[in-house]
């Protein structure tokens, strides 16, 4: 049986084009066919999770039933009651499958968990935010069918972008008018073609052609200070380029396909390499993930710390929360020393960045601000980021411990 990585090869795109055509004609004439949308969703989900990967498919079905039971149960419960412990238990239960999937390799010699499937981390974000917004009372009208469509929306199921229930629902319940939709088609097609350039040309060159060579060179140049060498520096930039073009390319496919289906899935990247500081970088890099962390971890923790006056100074609150926030992000990537160090690195970077911004605000007159300082800030930020990606890549783990 046929099986595909999402957006993995030309056949997938050909099938996508054929499947989307009737749907697009429908939207142009102001109609959405729920039945047809559900059928092609199932078709592409089977392509991704069926055939030799059927165990993942079974894991996905069980996982979805489990999350539906939790979110639905909580929505019903929340209409009558609002207890803190019940809320926390529900959130913990909803991330339990993800936790098992992430911890299993660390405790079982790298073996992956049986309940894992492609996309489990991204689906967990959607389930958790649904529960949190239900608790806040901002999500009042929870519908099982909408939740299923939201979770199983096939263009973004494997790696995001991470949409929001209420935003998705508003798009899904309406049909864009013809002028707007024609604009969306134009954008969608352009995104997909830029995605081809990013993923199949640039990421292929950096990731498949160049990176393995640099890795061999780096491994052969060990012995110097901390086993570092020029090939390690080359690998750092090459890995960063690959990471960006691969993931930005995938994201463009996912957003482009969503647009063709009349859904404005949010963008994941916005020129991250021109950020003048780390804080701005996180407003431009993997945006839907960093905003998810901002809205559902950072802001909520700050709110709680300040309401209960845990720390005296607001800056202490902000700093402690930065570190917690980025550490959680590190753990989310996986339970290895290099992912966790990567998270810690970015947490500390944000703390330093904020201190500098405060200092700059106080001494506005005496600190120069011109074209040169701007270029220097961008250069420094990009290099800090690349260094953090070197940690993230795991190359140091191979250099030092293998």
């Amino acid at each position, binding site marked *: 049986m046929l099986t595909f990585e999402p957006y993995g090869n030309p056949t997938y795109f050909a099938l996508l084009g054929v499947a989307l055509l009737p749907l697009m004609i429908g939207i142009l004439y102001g109609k959405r066919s729920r039945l047809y949308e559900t059928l092609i969703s199932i078709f592409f989900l089977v392509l991704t999770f069926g055939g030799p990967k059927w165990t993942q498919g079974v894991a996905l079905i069980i996982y979805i039933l489990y999350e539906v039971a939790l979110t639905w149960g909580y929505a019903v419960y929340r209409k009558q009651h609002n207890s803190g412990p019940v809320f926390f238990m529900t959130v913990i239960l909803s991330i339990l499958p993800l936790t098992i999937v992430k911890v299993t390799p660390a405790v079982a010699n790298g073996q992956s968990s049986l309940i894992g499937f492609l996309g489990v981390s991204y689906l967990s974000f959607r389930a958790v935010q649904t529960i949190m917004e239900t608790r806040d009372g901002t999500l009042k009208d929870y519908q099982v069918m909408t939740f299923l469509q939201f979770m199983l929306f096939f263009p973004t199921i494997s790696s995001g972008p991470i949409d929001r229930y209420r935003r998705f629902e508003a798009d899904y319940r309406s049909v864009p008018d013809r002028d707007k939709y024609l604009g969306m088609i134009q954008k969608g097609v352009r995104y997909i073609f830029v995605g081809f350039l990013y993923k199949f040309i640039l990421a292929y060159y950096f990731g498949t052609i160049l990176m393995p060579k640099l890795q061999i060179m780096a491994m052969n140049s060990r012995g110097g200070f901390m086993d570092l060498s020029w090939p390690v520096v080359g690998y750092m930039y090459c890995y960063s380029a690959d990471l960006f073009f691969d993931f930005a390319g995938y994201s463009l496919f996912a957003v482009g396909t969503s647009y063709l289906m009349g859904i404005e899935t949010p963008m994941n990247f916005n020129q991250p390499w021109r950020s003048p500081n780390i804080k701005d970088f996180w407003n431009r890099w993997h945006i839907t993930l960093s905003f998810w962390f901002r*809205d559902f971890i950072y802001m909520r923790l700050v709110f709680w710390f300040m309401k209960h006056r845990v720390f005296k100074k607001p800056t202490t609150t902000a700093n402690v929360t930065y570190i917690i926030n980025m550490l959680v992000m590190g753990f989310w990537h996986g339970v290895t020393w290099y992912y966790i160090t990567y998270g810690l690195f970015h947490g500390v970077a944000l703390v330093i960045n904020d201190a500098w911004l405060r200092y700059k605000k106080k001494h506005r007159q005496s600190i120069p601000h011109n074209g040169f300082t701007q270029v220097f800030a961008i250069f420094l930020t990009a290099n800090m980021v690349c260094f953090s990606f070197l940690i993230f890549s795991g190359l140091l783990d191979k250099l030092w411990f293998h």
Partner: protein
Amino acid sequence: MDIKATVLQILSDLTGNDVSGAMDDNLFDSGLLDSMGSVQLLLQLQSDLGINVPVSEFERSEWDTPNKIIAKAESLA
């Protein structure tokens, strides 16, 4: 109580700037507000005006200028 004056007072305490001359300037773009500042704003609105805003009600694009914040506060009061 005058909501507009209270919000402007809160914003000037938070940002260290008098924002009353630039009511439509984006506070996030200019760096005067960030996530931390947003939470402080929500808590101040709660203690000074008794307005309860859950964090998930805080959609940045609806709260990014002094005028928008005043309008939001008035609609929720």
